[in-house]
């Protein structure tokens, strides 16, 4: 009769000494799985240049019309690159179609997921905000 009760108490006691599951968010952030689809990010090459060639396929495929503006320009060596790239994160549904459509692997969804802001306009990302200084992509070469 008493044995099941003791078993239960033992389980409870065991948890008293184990690490708690609750995280001290926002001081501590929960790590996500490598294939998690977070914010879109413009990928940069080792030399610091963006991979994007402003082909606008992501803009075409985007089902929620979150990709607003892609402004192309011609570089010194006749290369095509974006001078402006605007994504409205309030519209983004994190479907990952853009990274699937991109022929250059230039746009990827990283592992950032926070979207709470006092002002919506903060969530309209321009080309600089879309490029992270240190990439937040866990698996850069996945897809």
């Amino acid at each position, binding site marked *: 009769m008493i044995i099941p009760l003791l078993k239960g108490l033992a389980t409870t006691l065991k948890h008293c000494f184990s690490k708690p599951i609750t995280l001290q968010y926002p001081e501590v952030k929960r790590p996500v799985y490598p294939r998690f689809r977070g914010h879109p990010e413009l990928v940069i090459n080792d030399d610091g240049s963006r991979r994007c*060639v*402003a*082909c*606008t*396929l992501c803009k*075409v495929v985007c089902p929620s019309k979150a990709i607003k503006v892609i402004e*192309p*320009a*011609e570089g010194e060596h*006749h*290369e*095509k690159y974006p001078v402006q790239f605007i994504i409205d994160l309030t519209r983004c549904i994190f479907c990952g179609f853009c990274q699937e459509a991109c*022929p*250059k692997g230039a746009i990827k969804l990283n592992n950032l997921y926070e979207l709470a802001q006092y002002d919506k306009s903060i969530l309209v990302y321009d080309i600089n905000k879309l490029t992270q200084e240190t990439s937040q992509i866990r698996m850069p070469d996945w897809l």
Partner: protein
Amino acid sequence: MVNLTIDGRAIQAKKGQTILEVARDNGIYIPYLCYHKALKPIASCRICVVEVKPGPPRPQPACSTYVTEGMEVVTTSERLDVIRRELVKLVLINHALDCPICDKGGECELQNLTHALGIDRVDYEAQVLTPHIDYESSLIERHPDRCVTCGRCIRICRDRVGAMAIHFMNRGYYTELGSGVLPLDCEFCGSCIEICPVGALINKVFKYQARAWELEKTETVCPFCGGGCTYQVQTRDGRILRVANQDSILLCGRGRFGFPVVHSEDRLTTPLIKENGSFRPASWGEALDLVAQRFQEIMAEAGPGAIYGVGSPRATNESNYLFQKFFREVLKTNNLDNPGRYHFVRGMAGLMAVFGVSQVDGLAAPAARVPAYHSPYEVTEGATGSGLMFVLGKLADLPQADVALVVGADVTTELPPLGWALMKARENENFQLIVANPRATKFDRYAALSLQYKPGAERLLMGGLFKAIFAAQPDIAPVINAAGLEEFKESFKKFSLKEYATKAGVDEGQLKTAAELLLKAQAPAIIFGTELLGQDKGQENATALADLFLLVGKPGNPGSGVYMAAEKANTLGLLVVGVLPDRLPGFIPIDKDPGLNLEQMLEALETGHDNAPQALYALGGDLVRWLPNRSRTEKLLKKLKFIVVQDAFLTDTAKLADVILPVAIHVEQEGTFFSSDSKLGLLRKALPENGVRPDWQIIMELANRLGGAFKYVKPAQIFQELAAQLPVCAGLAPGHCFPAPGLTAKLSGQFVPFEQDISLPGRRPYTLIVGKSLQHSGSYTTHQPCGTLMVTPGARLKMNPEDAVALNLGAGETAKIISSHGEITASVSLDADLPPGVVLLPDHFGEPAANRLTLNSNLVRVTIQKM
């Protein structure tokens, strides 16, 4: 008709159609790469192969196999699929995988083909070639690594445009496109870009600007010559990014690369009022109030005739119609004219003297309701027409002509579509071209006979031609009723044929050959343009050519006609809608109190006659820039008390104005143009106005301030009112010409003798022809960032290299050109097309202003000195 089956479907087709055309017309897809509807098939890609029974046991190219009775065609089978896939794979071996940055991506025929044939990999390997990508040209970029060697660009350039800029270089796997080993013969029309199925030729003006699917497309009319080409304006976010003609592909350089003028920094955006010698921006209300007030003051003082109006060949029919209505109904004066007075009106006057004014009789009452921009008059049985409109050639018919005589015109420069029509006519093996011009022009290379006469000797040349015709066939009788032939023959008694030939500077035998060719012709066409009509005796020139057409022309045979090239889009429209001092809309003459024409008005100003105007209302019409003898025009315009100019740019005339009203240009408004062959072109609005207003709105507001009651909401309403006054345009609809095909022609003519003299007085050693440049249309295309400025950034004095040596001048050096009326300086370019003693200066640019040298003609004798 031919009966055949395609994929088991019974189909009726016209004889002479190819399998591909029949399949396309019936919605059956046959893939192809080297074929294009605007070109003749060459069957080189073999992707369009189909199985044909009865026929050889191997597949046949659909693009070049004509349909026959009882033919059975199979367009899809396993064998055909394998062949097509292999062929496309071979094309793809070395194809650059540039699609993300290639401007053709999204509208690429190779992309579509690869997708349609389901090719996901290319299992061939070959030597990798280093592409020679050519970034040199400022308008056209070449990417040999994207080329599929279909030869479309070569064919459109050679067969349609008539230039020879592109050739296949090397052979086999190493084939690529280049200018050959010849000097580049390019007109910078960009037709090769448009016809390229892939992105091997790239439009640099459009490069990287947008992807094909992002563009909004609006069909409108090109404003850069009187040819009336319809083209598609492709815009995004209120900016034009490129233009295209998707039917014939052909556009000229100004058409294709000239559109950026719409977005020029030089555009006027607000009304300007002159105060103490300088302009200040004003509101529309203030500017219009001022104009109305000043007009009222001047009219109260000196009567309504004191205000003179100049219409604009850049403005729509609706605006010009309203302009003349404003003058006639509100101001109550006939004092208005148009700048065509100095060329096109002369031509029309010459034709009118010989063939009579255009008229239509026997029409039913106008219909009350018709679709927008359609004539309310229906061409019913029994309706007859007469007059010059029946001899005015239609560009669409020109390819059916068998002899074309070009006099004093550099065809492609004056009217590019006329050049394309001549190229098309050349496909007819019986076609013969006679080119008469003081200098060598592009079409000399295609001419059966080139007559290089002395500048200004056109009428002596014509005299010689008449003499030769009368000698070859003394009993010649025109095909239509013509009066005065005997007296006309008498007028050539003065000289013998030999004398005519010597005076005109041509060979007697050449005149005889030309006469023979014209006499043999079943559908002769006579072509001339602004350069001939711009002479002081332009009207006499036109009369001579009209007489010639009356004598040898075959009106009624398709292609036979008189083709007059107009430099500006709506030059003919101005005449049709009555921006003339002596004619109402529809060419109806005014018997009572006709106004002064432009020449008379300037004379009245010069003499200070009491009928001289005191104010000028110019709708565009840059008189200072375009009239000969610039200093006189400037001096006379300064005598006016008040000038209002309505223009999109600060033109030289606008600088003299007291008030400038900025107007919308072609893509910013709706309306219609009449091309120089009387085709009605419909302009559609593709861009917002951004502060400027269409001409008709400005005229309406002004009229209402001066007591008029104009209540138009849209241009279609104005057209409706206008069309009701134009029985000559019965049956007219957008894209159609008048007279309507169903109209019975009652054509008669009257031979009118013309003056047989050389109109080039003076003793100076060189003859200057004030001409045109291929890349420019008026001064319109001279505003940055117009694409054609990259090819022709300024005017250069063209002269024969021998002359340059004699004057110790080299290419690019500056020469001083002196006439008895003024002097200018211009940089020199050498051109062997010009005979020694003749120099040419285009007049599009403000500097050097060729009309500082001229008196009353576009020809002038000059002295040239090295600076």
